[in-house]
Structure formats: structure tokens, C-alpha cells
């Protein structure tokens, strides 16, 4: 028997990153703005997306990819709003990856799409290392998760491009200081916009929606150039 050292240098995440880049190029070509919504189970991702879709679908051709481990509950909520919805069941996986999104893109008529919202699988850890090809990485956290949740999951907040603190209307009831949560996020990621939302406060939802609308405008402008 002879021993050999074989050099490989194979980057496991880069394989995903490459597909993500491909996805992004396809979306850019068609001027589609895409949002990756990440956050824990019960943080309110689905509700925030519903509110955004309800408003934006009147102006922009909207498609939703609903990532979930096995169920299709979220997908049916989006379908009820009358937008194309592609459920992506990850099986035992805890995150969406670029390959799953690539497959879902095959089902979308990108020529006739302005906005693609991707709801990731509910958790604050696994989605961090997997780019999908999105233009905006959003993390949603609710006050019900406790105000130490942010420092327990630093990387998702460090790498987010928009942070949403949700359910702030019940912060007092769960004895949580939403401002402390905001400070924690900013301590990890000083440049990230942080917004506080509640589904009972339309003004706060408008702020959330305006971030997406801003992105759509930018994507369409870039495509026209």
C-alpha cells in the first residue's frame, strides 16, 4: 500500500454561490427584483410578505417562492392573494439553497415578473451560509423571541441588508425592549436599516413595503440602462 496526499481545494459553499450568481444574472436580465426573507419560525415572515404582496401586486407583477420543510400552508396563503406561488419543500433541510431556487425559477415567466419574494425556511442559522441570488437579504425577528435573540444569532444580523423587528405592539406584554433589539442589531451591523413593524400598524407596514418598492424601482432602472 502506498500513501498519497491528493490536493483538492474544493470550496463547498462556492458551488452554491456560483448557482446563486447565475440566478441573480437571470433575474437582472429581466429586471426582476428579488427579496430573501429570513427569520425564525413564528417571527411573522409570512404575514409581512402577505401584507407586501397585497399592496404591491396591484402595481407590480409579483411571484412568491415559499420555502418550507414539508407543508404548503404558507404557499396557500399567498395563492389566496392571487399571485403565482411556488412552494419549495426542502424535505429535511433547514434552509433554501441556490439550486432549489434555480429550479423554482424555471417555473416563472421572468419576462412578465417585476418582483420575486422568497420566504426562506424558518430559522436564524442555516440560511446564512446559502446565497440564493437575491438582491435584498431581509431578516425578520419578533419581540416574542426575547431581546437576547440577536446576539445569540449574530451572523444573520451581521450579513442582513434590512432588519425588521416585528410584533412591536406586544413588546410590553412579553417584557421586551424593542429599542434594545435595535441597538443590538446596529452593534453588529452599524449600516443596516432597522425597521419596527406591527401588522396592526399600517404606517409601519408601509415603511416595510417602501423598502421593497425602492428595490423594484432600482432593478427596473438598471435594466433600462
Amino acid at each position: 500500500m502506498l500513501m498519497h496526499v491528493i490536493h483538492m481545494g474544493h470550496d463547498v459553499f462556492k458551488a452554491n454561490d456560483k448557482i446563486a450568481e447565475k440566478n441573480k444574472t437571470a433575474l437582472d436580465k429581466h429586471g426582476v427584483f428579488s427579496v430573501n426573507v429570513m427569520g425564525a419560525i413564528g417571527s411573522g415572515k409570512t404575514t409581512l410578505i402577505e401584507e407586501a404582496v397585497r399592496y404591491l401586486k396591484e402595481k407590480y407583477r409579483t411571484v412568491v417562492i415559499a420555502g418550507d420543510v414539508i407543508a404548503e400552508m404558507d404557499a396557500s396563503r399567498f395563492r389566496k392573494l392571487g399571485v403565482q406561488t411556488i412552494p419549495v419543500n426542502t424535505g429535511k433541510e433547514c434552509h433554501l439553497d441556490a439550486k432549489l431556487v434555480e429550479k423554482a425559477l424555471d417555473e416563472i415567466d421572468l419576462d412578465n415578473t417585476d418582483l420575486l419574494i422568497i420566504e426562506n425556511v424558518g430559522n436564524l442559522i442555516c440560511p446564512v451560509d446559502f446565497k440564493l441570488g437575491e438582491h435584498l437579504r431581509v431578516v425578520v425577528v419578533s419581540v416574542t423571541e426575547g431581546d437576547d435573540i440577536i446576539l445569540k444569532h449574530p451572523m444573520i444580523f451581521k450579513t442582513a441588508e434590512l432588519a425588521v423587528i416585528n410584533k412591536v405592539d406586544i413588546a410590553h406584554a412579553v417584557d421586551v425592549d424593542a429599542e434594545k433589539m435595535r441597538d443590538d442589531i446596529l452593534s453588529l451591523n452599524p449600516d443596516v436599516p432597522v425597521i419596527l413593524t406591527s401588522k396592526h400598524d399600517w404606517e409601519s407596514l408601509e415603511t416595510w413595503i417602501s423598502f421593497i418598492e425602492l428595490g423594484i424601482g432600482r432593478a427596473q432602472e438598471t435594466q433600462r440602462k
Partner: protein
Amino acid sequence: MHEYSIACEIFEQVIATAEAHEAQEVRHVILKMGRLAHTNPEQLSFCFKAIAEGSIAENAEFIVEMIPPSLECECGYTGTVDETQIGKDGELQSELLEYIAALECPVCGKNARITGGRELIIKSIDIETEVEK
């Protein structure tokens, strides 16, 4: 937990490379893992063993080299986080937080861009063959 799917990917790559080199057995799999990657080396090794059962890599041992984060600042500084400083701040409660706190530029103090430390690389494998290569 996503170590299982990552272990599958590592297994496929390792086996393909090992077979291409006519390996009889894979002895070691040497990985380079970023400190900021959300991957647990023990879980990864456990999953790999489960997947590799019955293959030429079933007795392979995982050797994981941890890579410190590296940064690039708009002031022009590029470099690696000084690991000797990690663990000195008693107030922070996790190693990951300490690494993230260390991502400030040591020159101007600004929050620098992460250029390394999130990767997972199969660096090399040690194999046994019957033939001289």
C-alpha cells in the same frame, strides 16, 4: 442542522477524487473551515461517517483546520483577525460574537467587509493505493 447535506457534498467530492486516483482507502479528509461558517465540525464528521459506511472512505478521519476571519476596510486595510485577542473580552458571551466584534478595522475602527472566514474547503485527502503514482 445542515451538516448532513454538507457531508453528502463532501462525500461525493472525496469519493470522486479518490476513485480518480485509484484509491483503495481514504485515510484522512483535511478540511479548512471558516470561524464564521455555521458548521459544526463534530456533527459534520458524524454525518460523514454515517454516509461513508461501506465505502472506501468509511474509516476516514476528519482533520479540520479553522480559518480566522479576514477583512478589508474602505481605508485600505486588509488583514486577518488577530486571534490572540479572542477570548480576552470577558463581557461577550460567545466565541462567534468575539470574532464578529473583532471585525472592526484595527486602523480606523470602522466596520470592515468580511472577505474570509465563512468558507468550507476540502483541502486535501490522504489515500492509499496499490499502484505507484
